[in-house]
């Protein structure tokens, strides 16, 4: 039944997000066209408006993906639609997994659309080379492989934001166990969950630091990390975030499986 739930969750997100994807790509294309034309005052003003709209849509995609994931989660599990969701012959785990996978998919899609939009807007051979040189300058100093560095950097940002989204899910689940002020409690529990997860990340890195003086320098001094410590920190961050996301998911499901109390 998970595939069926996912089908309808994805349909909902496509309906609501596709307009932002189309607009972001549209303004990416118009910006590129406008800046490729001979620059008059009007063309320049239109170009600036277009680039502004493009960035607004890029930010919109990011914020909307997060907010809509939370809103969809709350609406279909705790509001009127929940009367249908919880009477479907599906397990609570399937309901949660569907929301989790839907968020994951739209987060990846949104990220790719943002990359594509920026690529359409700004790509030239020269800029591409400049970017490569910039990354290479950073990575050479740190003795890192450029591709691996970019992938790791994106992975950490991705895991960090996804962790924040899941903290929101946990906040909504815990907040709706209260009989009053459910939204306020959801926000409060979400923020607490996020700070707790960040504290755990720091704590685990600190524990590793107890056995690795280079990592400990991160907490005790202002000097830059050496190459091996930087590499270790990237790997640690990825592993810790990954584990936290799994643990948070198990905690969310455990609390969700205890049942709901709809108004």
């Amino acid at each position, binding site marked *: 039944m998970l595939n069926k739930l996912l089908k309808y969750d994805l349909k909902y997100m496509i309906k609501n997000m596709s307009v932002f994807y189309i607009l972001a790509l549209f303004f990416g294309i118009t910006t590129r066209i406008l800046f490729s034309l001979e620059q008059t005052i009007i063309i320049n003003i239109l170009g600036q408006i277009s680039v502004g709209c493009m960035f607004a849509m890029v930010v919109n995609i990011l914020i909307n993906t997060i907010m809509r994931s939370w809103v969809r989660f709350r609406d279909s599990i705790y509001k009127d*639609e*929940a009367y249908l969701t*919880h*009477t479907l012959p*599906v397990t609570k785990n399937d309901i949660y997994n569907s929301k989790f996978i839907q968020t994951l998919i739209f987060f990846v899609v949104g990220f790719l659309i943002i990359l594509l939009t920026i690529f359409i807007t700004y790509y030239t051979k020269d800029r591409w080379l400049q970017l490569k040189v910039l990354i290479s300058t950073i990575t050479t100093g740190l003795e890192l492989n450029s591709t691996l560095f970019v992938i790791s950097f994106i992975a950490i940002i991705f895991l960090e934001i996804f962790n924040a989204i899941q903290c929101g899910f946990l906040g909504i689940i815990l907040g709706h166990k209260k*009989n009053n002020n459910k939204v306020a409690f959801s926000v409060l529990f979400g923020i607490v969950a996020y700070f707790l997860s960040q504290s755990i990340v720091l704590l685990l890195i600190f524990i590793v630091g107890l056995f690795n003086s280079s990592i400990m320098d991160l907490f005790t001094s202002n000097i830059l990390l050496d190459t091996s410590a930087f590499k270790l920190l990237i790997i640690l961050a990825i592993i810790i975030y990954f584990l936290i996301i799994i643990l948070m998911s198990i905690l969310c499901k455990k609390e969700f499986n205890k*049942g*709901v109390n709809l108004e």
Partner: protein
Amino acid sequence: MKLLEVKNLCKIFDDKEILIDINFSIPNGKIIGLLGKNGAGKSTLIKLINDLLTPTKGEILINGNKIGVETKKVISYLPERTYLNKQMRVKDVINYFEDFYDNFDADKAKKLLKDLDLNIEQKLSKMSKGMLEKVQLVLVMSRNADLYVLDEPLGGVDPATRDYILDTILSNFNENASVIISTHLISDIEKILDEVIFIDKGKIILQSDADKLRNKEKSSIDEIFRRMFKC
């Protein structure tokens, strides 16, 4: 085996006892009126049967199974509120029910919708509350379920439509299935009831065969209800 069995069921909200030690059972093939004043605990009981609330104590069994995936396959529930995603069209909702419920009869749903002059191409967001309630009733009654649980099915509709709804309920469930109807409009449904359950202040105060009760009290269920719950 009993179709529905409720044992020692309690529900407490904010230290307030909403349901207190509820015990009853329902066999197959009956239409049962769940009757009580506002706030008596009818909707709470119905929500517990449908896994929308978590019991504080006690258990509910459907065909011997605890509430879960298996029981949801055989319960068809009509809530008192609109639970459909308004972004959908009527035909999308039919597909949705067909996807999730093996016992959903899409052809029957389409026929019933046609009888009610409802267009399956129409968006739910463009429909009135009354139209949405009709769509939901059609969806619920188009399932070949063992137990239909209808919470205030006549609440928001005009008297002429009430007759159609009652007729729809009566003519669309098989003889082995049972129907629980919760309503304030007792006079409208009294003629179709086999059994009644009176609930007050979270307790079941009466469960009886409807005809036996009428003969014993020499008055209609509506009159008995008014006498018992006189303010």
